């Protein structure tokens, strides 16, 4: 009667990076159960870093043997060049984030709470704030999230994409609420992110359902075929696409779906903010790029104008709202909204140069963000990080090196030449120009000028203001944070001065169908 199910072909070498990260996460969970508490931190750090390095080696080996530009797991996972590039990006940025998470010097015991179960504000909580341990489950959670991101941007059907979306989001919701200081703010951020994330996921899922109804398949390629090949009413297609996009744009914090970004960025522990700012952006835009190009590329005449408007709104919202922010983390959050708009310009070019530009933008922006948040975590006062802009006044006098690095990173975010920010904006806008999105490019240039204002404001504050008497101090970073900041800054510089090799890597191929 029943035919025995035959497993689909699996290209183990190809998906090895993902499997390694997932496996390491599971091992990490087991270690939590068996390793004595005092050794867990060290073991988890080693495991996480090792997993990322091994995954990167596996990726390198696969790339070396010549990838086939195929998909595996019955077409669920694409192994094309953009996916592999994004994996590399995510692994590199994940490494930086894990380094930030692992630091226990800047904040004694780490940025994460020792025991999340203790109610904030109680005597116990005050006591544990000074204890030098942390909730080491953060490491496997981060790895799960990282794996989810990798799958998210290589998923070739909407069902895998949805599960990956949840796999990447759920640990993030959790980790957002685990800050050691200002725990109520952190928990509030987590709940907000969770509720809004669930809201967005619901849209996404509804979209998937409608698209299945339209194409009788959740595969991106089938949707494209259905859109191209039939004369049935495509109300379902566009309805489903709209709902799907809400979920995706939410993750990429593209305005007007960005509202969670500032609150969550501010409340989350700073290493987590860095992780979200860098990696989630990569994953989300990887997925947006794939969905728009593979599934909806054939119908782009119908929707591209609307997406231009979305990109424009995002740029302007981010740039304008950033002006009045008084908190560094919120400011970078709004800047990320503006950057999401710039990224969409590259996506909307909808051609090879657009893919290349977007991928390059993602990696350069990710490294800059990680380094920037690394710096943010170093400026502290008695109650923890001092993210209020007014307390950054005169930092240039107190700590010239740190202020210099932060200035450089801000200039990169503003897109000043010789930083990766300039090259990435240039390639993205160039791709947009050659695809004929001139108005959007002009708007982008104007928005980046407005945005330059609030980066500049921080620089002015740091150099041209007198430091406040009881202002924050700059903590000497430990090995891990130093490594993360150095990595981010050097890549920002390298990609600004010699971007060709990265652009080459980013542009070697399109999506597999």
């Amino acid at each position, binding site marked *: *009667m*029943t*035919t025995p*199910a*035959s*497993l*689909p072909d699996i290209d183990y070498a190809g998906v090895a990076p993902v499997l390694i990260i*997932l496996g390491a*996460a*599971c091992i990490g*969970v087991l270690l*939590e159960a068996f390793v004595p508490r005092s050794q867990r931190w060290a073991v988890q750090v080693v495991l996480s870093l090792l997993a990322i390095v091994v995954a990167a080696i596996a990726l390198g080996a696969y790339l070396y043997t010549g990838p086939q530009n195929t998909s595996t*797991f*019955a077409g*669920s*996972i694409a192994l094309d060049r953009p996916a592999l590039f994004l994996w590399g990006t995510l692994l590199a940025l994940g490494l930086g984030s894990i380094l930030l998470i692992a630091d226990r010097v800047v904040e004694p015991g780490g940025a994460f709470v020792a*025991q*999340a*179960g*203790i109610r904030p504000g109680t*005597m*116990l909580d005050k*006591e544990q704030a000074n204890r030098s341990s942390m*909730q080491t*489950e953060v490491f*496997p*959670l981060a790895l*799960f999230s990282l*794996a*989810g991101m990798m*799958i998210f941007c290589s998923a070739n*059907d909407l*069902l*895998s994409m*949805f*599960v*990956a979306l*949840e*796999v990447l989001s*759920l*640990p993030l*919701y*959790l980790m957002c*609420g*685990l800050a050691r200081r200002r725990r109520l703010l952190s928990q509030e951020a987590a709940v907000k992110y969770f509720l809004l994330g669930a809201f967005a996921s619901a849209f996404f899922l*509804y979209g998937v359902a*409608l698209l299945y*109804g*339209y194409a*009788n398949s959740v595969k991106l390629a089938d949707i494209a075929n259905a859109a191209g090949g039939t004369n*049935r*009413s*495509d*109300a*379902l297609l*566009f*309805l489903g696409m709209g709902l799907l996009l809400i979920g995706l744009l939410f993750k990429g914090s593209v305005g007007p779906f960005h509202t969670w970004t500032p609150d969550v960025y501010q409340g989350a522990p700073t290493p987590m903010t860095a992780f979200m700012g860098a990696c989630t952006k990569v994953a989300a835009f990887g997925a947006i790029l794939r969905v728009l190009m593979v599934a909806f590329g054939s119908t782009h005449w119908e929707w591209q104008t609307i997406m231009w408007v979305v990109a424009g709104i995002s740029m302007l919202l981010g740039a304008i709202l950033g002006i009045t922010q008084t908190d560094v983390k919120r400011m970078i959050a709004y800047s990320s909204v503006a950057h999401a708009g710039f990224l969409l310009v590259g996506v909307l070019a909808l051609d090879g140069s657009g893919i290349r530009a977007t991928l390059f933008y993602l990696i350069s922006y990710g490294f800059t963000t990680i380094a920037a948040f690394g710096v943010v975590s170093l400026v502290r006062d008695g109650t923890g990080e001092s993210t209020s802009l007014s307390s950054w006044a005169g930092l240039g006098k107190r700590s010239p090196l740190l202020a210099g690095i932060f200035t450089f990173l801000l200039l990169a975010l503003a897109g000043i030449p010789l930083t990766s920010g300039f090259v990435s904006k240039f390639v993205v806008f160039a791709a947009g120009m050659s695809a004929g999105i001139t108005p959007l490019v002009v708007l982008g240039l104007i928005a980046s000028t407005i945005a330059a204002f609030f980066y500049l404001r921080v620089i002015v504050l740091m150099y041209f203001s007198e430091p406040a008497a009881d202002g924050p101090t700059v903590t000497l970073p430990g090995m891990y944070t130093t490594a993360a900041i150095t990595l981010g800054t050097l890549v920002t510089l390298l990609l600004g001065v010699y971007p060709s090799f990265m652009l080459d890597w980013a542009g070697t191929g399109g999506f597999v169908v």
Partner: protein
Amino acid sequence: MTVSVYEEIAFWILGPLSLAGALGMLFSRSAVHSALWLVLTMLSLGVLYMVQDAPFLGIVQIIVYTGAIMMLFLFVLMLAGRESSDSVVEVLRGQRIWASLLGIGLAGLVVAGVARSLGDVTPAGLDNPAANGSGGPGNVANIGQSLFTRYLFPFELTSALLITAAIGAMVLAYTRKQAKGGKNRQREMVNMRFRENTRPGALPGPGVFATADSVATPALLPDGSIAKESLSRIIETTPVTQIEEDEALADRHPDAHALTGAARDGDDGASIVASPASEERSE
């Protein structure tokens, strides 16, 4: 597309029911009622699935959603306190109006879009005899086939989701017991109570019906003195001076029925001292 009469009857009963359930969930004030309304919706949906030749899905819907998840919901609600519900006063101007308008708008868009596209679609249907019908492998086998071939990866990936959820619950709820100053477990509580040799038993109730109607009335010991432990610490309406006066009164006029006829040794002060036991009770 042909719809049999029975299917139509089922739909016209279940459809309004599920809609009513959903609306009821939204508008009922008590969280428990909301949960129960939701059960109605899910049950109706489960039956609808079955009517549409998806018995497995229908059963899963009922077992997992109605049976497991909703019951968990109810447990949590009961644990958290049936009465603890958020304030329903809306402080944001225009929030409700806009939310209603936009909600209706979205529903309108979706309904319009779906309605538009329904006309010229040939349903794939699940009653394909070769697949699901009596001749084919059947509903369950087909789902299994799909899960382990086409959707193998997302299916396996859900395990990551489950692990994350489990860890999350533990991280957020679990605190170490042996930590200094950490929460005590019940056995330790009992041991401590006896070791400290204060009051192993329950605290006395207040003297409500002895002399007054108020719970703020302290109980009287057999000797006529006041049992201070009988006053709940959370009742702050009783002024300390009042207790002092009462105490003084009791001291001067020993109760006729008292066994000793004398005031008890004043071993504690006028204010109520928190003993570990009374703290335990107030929690």
